[in-house]
Every structure is written in structure tokens, then in C-alpha cells.
């Protein structure tokens, strides 16, 4: 390069106009601003969140502001906005707003207070269940997508099978056979720890070769588990599990979470399969990063968009599932109010007191709809292919 060229180059670098800088957040905000329904969804979601959190504080404690469990039999089935009959009530029984904002139910309990209490249940069920399912989904999908080509050997499959069988038999009081299986597992561990190193150079006998042959790839294994899980009618699976476990809100969250991770797994795996072949993954490997770091720090942020979208919609369906369970009487145990069991109580009085069914029903409708709208808006913003249409 001559001096003139060098000078030209330097000038070029200094004076070249930079493209207008727009951070990713600004881009998201701009695209989101164009989607009014998504904004509406987000707004309702924030409102719901606010209601649920304040509701938790206002309805709990020894002397709550709104007492969802206060029974006033003389005031039963009052319509919304009815004034309480002050003559027949103790001072502490008068509702805090001075009016039954959403009426009362068949025991004279304030529906507004019960809705506030139920909002917190719906919110936590939605978030915890989806949190569990997303965590499992990301983990399984990440493993299937990244390590999918690796194989599990026959001996490892047999080992796992023997371990599960042995533990099961011991628990089921077939102690002798179970112990034999567990001892076999133990022997296998010792064998693989000590005996294998010496025999790598020698000729492997046919039996040993059979045990060491590749049984199934990790990808196949995980995706078939997903298929099996998808085959279960999950609502009835939840019903069965809930019937066996003690009725508690946490059990329901966990059960809903454990039966709804399959979609996320498929999303994550699909994203990983394409991202794994990208050059930046090879570049990260060439920098000496560990597999764990590559999966969770380099690939995951690129794969998170569809997961977020499905999570938002998953929250809606988890809320629906919880409401359905409570409606059937398998949900949160009775003194505690949830939208589902308010609805379930109300169905007995649907002609006398329609507000008992309509208020929780409409609340569920609005919240689920807002989550779905927000989720779809999020998908539009995060998917670069759809982005160009705007």
C-alpha cells in the first residue's frame, strides 16, 4: 500500500457515515407499538398482575381488608353493586367498600374478595407451572438438539432399566429380586470403573461388542419420550395424579408443569438443530468454551424467542387447566377461593344468581385472551421473517 492509499483509507474510515444506531430494545418497542392488540394484552396482563399482588395482601392475614371467607348467611345471593343491610350485620362483617361490588354467593361471601384471592392462585399457577415446563423443556430440548447425534450404548440402557426395576421391586416389597438387580447395577459400576481401561487394546469378544453397540441416539430417546407424553390425554393424567396426591395448590402447579413441557422441548430442539451447525458455535468451540457454556450462553439466547412465545400462551392454558380442575372439584381445596371453584359453586345458581358464573368466567376469558394476544404480538416482534411484513 502506498502512502497515498493509506491516507485515503484512513480518511475513509474516519469520515464514513455510520448507520443510524438503533438498539434491539428500540426496534422491539417500534414493532410492538404497531400492534395495538398486543399492547392491549400487555396492559391487561399488567393490570391482572397488579390485582393479583394487591389482592394477595388485601385478602390474607388475620384481619384482611377483604375477607373472602366471611360468611353472612342473611346476605346470600346479593346481586353486584348491592348495598349491604347494615342492620343485620356486625361492624366487622360490612364489606370494606361499603357495597358488594360483585355480589355475594350462596353463603353470603363477598365475591369481589374471593375473586381477588383467586387471581393470585391463577397467576402463580400460570407462572410456576409454565416456569417448570419451560425449564424442563429447555433442558430436554437443548440436550436433544445439541448432543442428539451421540448414542447411548446397550449396556447403559440395560443399566438404567435394571436400576429402575430394582428400585421399583424393592419399594414394592419384592426385596430379594430387587436387591439382585441393584447388586447387578453396583457390579456394573465397578466393572466400568476398573475393568474397562485394561481391555481397550485387546480384541473384544462378541458378547461384549453387543453390549457396547449403540442402542439408541439421545435425540431419538428424548423425542420418543416426548411423543409418549403427548399421547397421554394430559387432562386425565392430571386428574389421576391429583386424585392420588394430597390436594394442594403446589401439587397442581407441579403436575401441570410436568405434563406440558413437550411443546417447548420440540421448539428448543428444532432451534438447536439449526443453530448447532452455525459458524458461531464452531467459533465458540474453537475459543475453548465448554459445551455447557455454549449451550446455555451462546445458543440459548438465539433460541429463546419461540420459547417465550409458547410460554406466554402456555400461561393462559395453565390458568385454564387450573380453572377446569377446580371446577371439577379436583383443584385447590374449598375454603380457598379460585376462579374455577367460584365458577363451580355458581353453576348451581346459574338462573338465580348468574353473576356467580359470569364474573369468574369473564375474568378467565379476559386474562387468557390477553395472554394469547400478547404472546402473538411477541412472536411477531421476535420473528425476523414476520418482521418484514410490517
Amino acid at each position: 500500500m502506498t502512502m497515498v492509499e493509506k491516507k485515503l483509507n484512513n480518511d475513509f474510515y474516519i469520515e464514513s457515515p455510520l448507520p443510524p444506531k438503533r438498539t434491539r430494545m428500540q426496534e422491539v418497542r417500534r414493532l410492538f407499538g404497531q400492534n395495538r392488540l398486543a399492547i392491549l394484552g400487555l396492559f391487561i396482563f399488567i393490570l391482572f398482575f397488579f390485582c393479583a399482588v394487591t389482592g394477595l395482601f388485601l385478602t390474607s392475614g388475620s384481619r384482611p381488608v377483604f375477607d373472602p371467607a366471611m360468611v353472612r348467611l342473611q346476605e346470600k345471593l346479593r346481586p353486584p353493586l348491592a348495598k349491604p343491610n347494615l342492620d343485620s350485620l356486625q361492624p366487622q362483617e360490612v364489606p370494606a367498600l361499603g357495597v358488594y361490588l360483585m355480589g355475594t354467593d350462596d353463603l353470603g361471601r363477598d365475591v369481589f374478595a374471593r375473586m381477588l384471592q383467586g387471581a393470585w392462585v391463577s397467576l402463580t399457577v400460570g407462572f410456576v407451572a409454565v416456569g417448570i415446563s419451560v425449564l424442563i423443556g429447555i433442558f430436554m430440548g437443548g440436550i436433544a438438539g445439541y448432543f442428539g447425534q451421540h448414542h447411548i450404548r446397550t449396556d447403559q440402557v440395560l443399566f438404567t432399566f435394571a436400576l429402575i426395576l430394582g428400585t421399583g421391586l424393592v419399594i414394592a416389597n419384592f426385596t430379594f429380586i430387587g436387591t439382585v438387580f441393584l447388586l447387578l447395577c453396583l457390579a456394573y459400576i465397578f466393572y466400568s470403573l476398573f475393568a474397562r481401561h485394561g481391555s481397550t487394546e485387546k480384541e473384544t469378544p462378541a458378547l461384549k461388542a453387543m453390549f457396547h453397540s449403540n442402542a439408541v441416539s439421545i435425540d431419538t430417546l428424548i423425542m420418543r419420550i416426548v411423543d409418549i407424553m403427548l399421547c397421554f390425554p394430559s387432562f386425565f393424567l392430571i386428574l389421576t395424579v391429583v386424585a392420588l396426591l394430597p390436594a394442594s395448590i403446589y401439587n397442581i402447579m407441579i403436575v401441570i408443569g410436568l405434563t406440558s413441557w413437550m411443546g417447548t422441548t420440540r421448539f428448543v430442539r428444532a432451534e438447536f438443530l439449526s443453530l448447532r451447525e452455525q459458524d458461531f458455535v464452531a467459533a465458540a468451540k474453537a475459543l475453548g468454551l465448554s459445551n455447557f457454556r455454549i449451550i446455555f450462553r451462546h445458543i440459548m439466547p438465539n433460541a429463546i424467542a419461540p420459547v417465550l412465545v409458547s410460554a406466554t400462551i402456555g400461561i393462559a392454558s395453565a390458568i385454564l387447566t387450573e380453572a377446569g380442575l377446580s371446577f371439577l372439584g379436583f383443584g385447590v381445596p374449598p375454603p380457598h377461593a379460585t376462579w374455577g371453584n367460584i365458577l363451580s359453586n355458581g353453576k348451581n345458581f346459574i338462573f338465580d344468581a348468574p353473576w356467580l358464573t359470569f364474573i369468574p368466567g369473564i375474568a378467565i376469558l379476559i386474562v387468557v385472551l390477553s395472554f394469547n394476544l400478547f404472546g402473538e404480538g411477541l412472536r411477531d416482534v421476535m420473528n425476523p421473517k414476520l418482521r418484514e411484513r410490517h
Partner: protein
Amino acid sequence: MIDGQTTNDRPLLCVENLKVYFQSNGEHAHAVDGISFEVRKKETVCIVGESGCGKTVSALSILGLIPTPPGEIVDGQIIFSGQNLIKLDEKAMQKIRGNHISMVFQEPLTSLNPVFTIGDQIGEAVYTHKQIEPEALFQYCVQLLNDVGIPSPKQRLNDYPHQLSGGQRQRVMIAMALACDPDLIIADEPTTALDVTVQAQILALLKSIQKKRSMSVLYISHDLGVVSAIANRIYVMYAGIIVEQGNTAQIFRAARHPYTQGLLASLPSLSKRGKRLYSIPGNVPNPAYKPDGCPFHPRCRHRILSCQKEYPGMCDYGEGHLARCPVLFKSKGYKASRIQGVK
């Protein structure tokens, strides 16, 4: 030592008889079929060859990045400053990658993670191997970007890859490769995706950095023009084997293998103006179905009957210049005893 150098001047990297096979649908593709080469300290070594001849595979196998279910290192050893990299486990390899050997990839557009800033990625490259304070790390990153010639490095550190041009991204990649002061940089066609002016800048940059930091560079390319500009020594690869090796002058002035001669003849130049450009007839053989004997013989104009049967040995032309073509060797009247390693 081929060059007759003293034994205490051991090569930094020494690949011996490396064989990498890929298995797909029951076929064994012999992507790299027994190559040997070495890279000495402060030296630029080029591996030249057509696409699909195994250049990239041999580079990746040095770093242990061959995807193992389809690919497999069947034989050979890779000695890097005294240790055999093939025998090392994954943990030990991670300490070598980036720290002692680093790599610059072909496509700067896709080799950077789109969701992180430049600063994050360079910082990570440093932080993986050297634990230093965030403040010092930032200064070090600025210094690195400065070294690779990116203007206003402090602002650029907060940029995302899509905000940079192709040349700048490749500079960032080089900065990441330099991050831990490696002994060897493997550059896998780093200028292929760039236009010619930027290509010249990147080459000049690589050269000056190499001089400043006294590193070795293993440069992989199909572009003989680029190779002639930077190489100290050249290995010409064809269908998974090295067909000719020598220093730049030997290869460009006195090529001894018909394949190298063909490659050189097909370079456009001013003296060939107006004439039809030479091209080697035929195609690169399918790596799963290579011809017997010399893999180049179906396309070779000097072929004789024995080329179809005998795997050609390396013929020593002296001063480190070797070519795998006994036919030309004998016809020039060299002593047949100097043919090495006939299979």
C-alpha cells in the same frame, strides 16, 4: 528434518500421517488420507487445494473439532509443542483451544454470535483462559480492537455484529483469535467472503500482527494469489493427500507435480491475455470412491499405466521440496532411490 535444520529447532506443530474418515450411509469418505505437515515457529504455512480436498477437515482435526459421530480420526498424530493432541481429553483440549491455538473462520458474517455485543464476545475469549478484572478486561479489549485496526474501538465494543461491515467483522474475529496470545493461528480461508480491497487489508493485518507477536500461522486457502503473498512454505493438497510441498519460490517457480502445475497454469495473468485459460479436465474424485493408485491419475496428462496401480511416493527434489509424482521424477532423471514412503 526435511530442511536439514538442527534438531533443537523443533516444529511448533507436527502432523504425522493424519487420517480422518467420515462415515455416512455405510460409506467411508476418506476426507483426509494420511497427511503429514509441520509448522515451525514464526512461520506462515499455507495449505492449498480445491474445495473438498480436506483442507478444512485437517484444520478442524488439529483443534479436535471434527464432529465425532460421522467423522473419526482413524490414524496419525498431531504433536503440538510436545503433546499429542489426539490423545488429549476434551477438558485438556478446551485449555488448548483459543489459548494456544486459535482459529479464524471463513465467514465473518456468521461466525459472530448475533445476540451479543462485540465487547462481550472478545471479552469472553479473554476471560475463558485468563481471569482478569472487568476494568482491565475492557482496556484489553479496546487494545485488541485497536491492534486489528478498528477505528474508535471504545464505541465499537458496544456494537452488535450486524452493525459492522464484513471487513470489520473479520477484524473482530482476528481480535478474538489474538485474545490469548496464541502460538498458532489457523486461518481457514479468512478472506474468501470479503471483496478484494478488504482482502488485501486483512492479509496485511495478519502479516503485521504475525510479525509483531511472532506467532505461527497456518493459512488455508484455495487462492494461489493470496498464498503467494503471505506464505513461507506451501503444502498442496489433493483428494485428502499432500501432493507437493516446498517453499513459496519452489512451488511457484518450479512446481513438480502435474496438479500443482495445472493449478498454476489456470491462474489468470497478463501474459495469458487473450488466450483461453487452462483448466484441469475432470472433477475432484468422490472422497468415498477414490481411484486406485494415484488419486490424480484420471485427470493427469503425464499418467502412465503404473499410475493406476501404485500409490505414488514422495519424491525428494532437495531443499525441502517434495512432490508425489514418480513419473515426472524419473523422466527428469533423478535417482529413484530418493522416492520415500511407497505404500
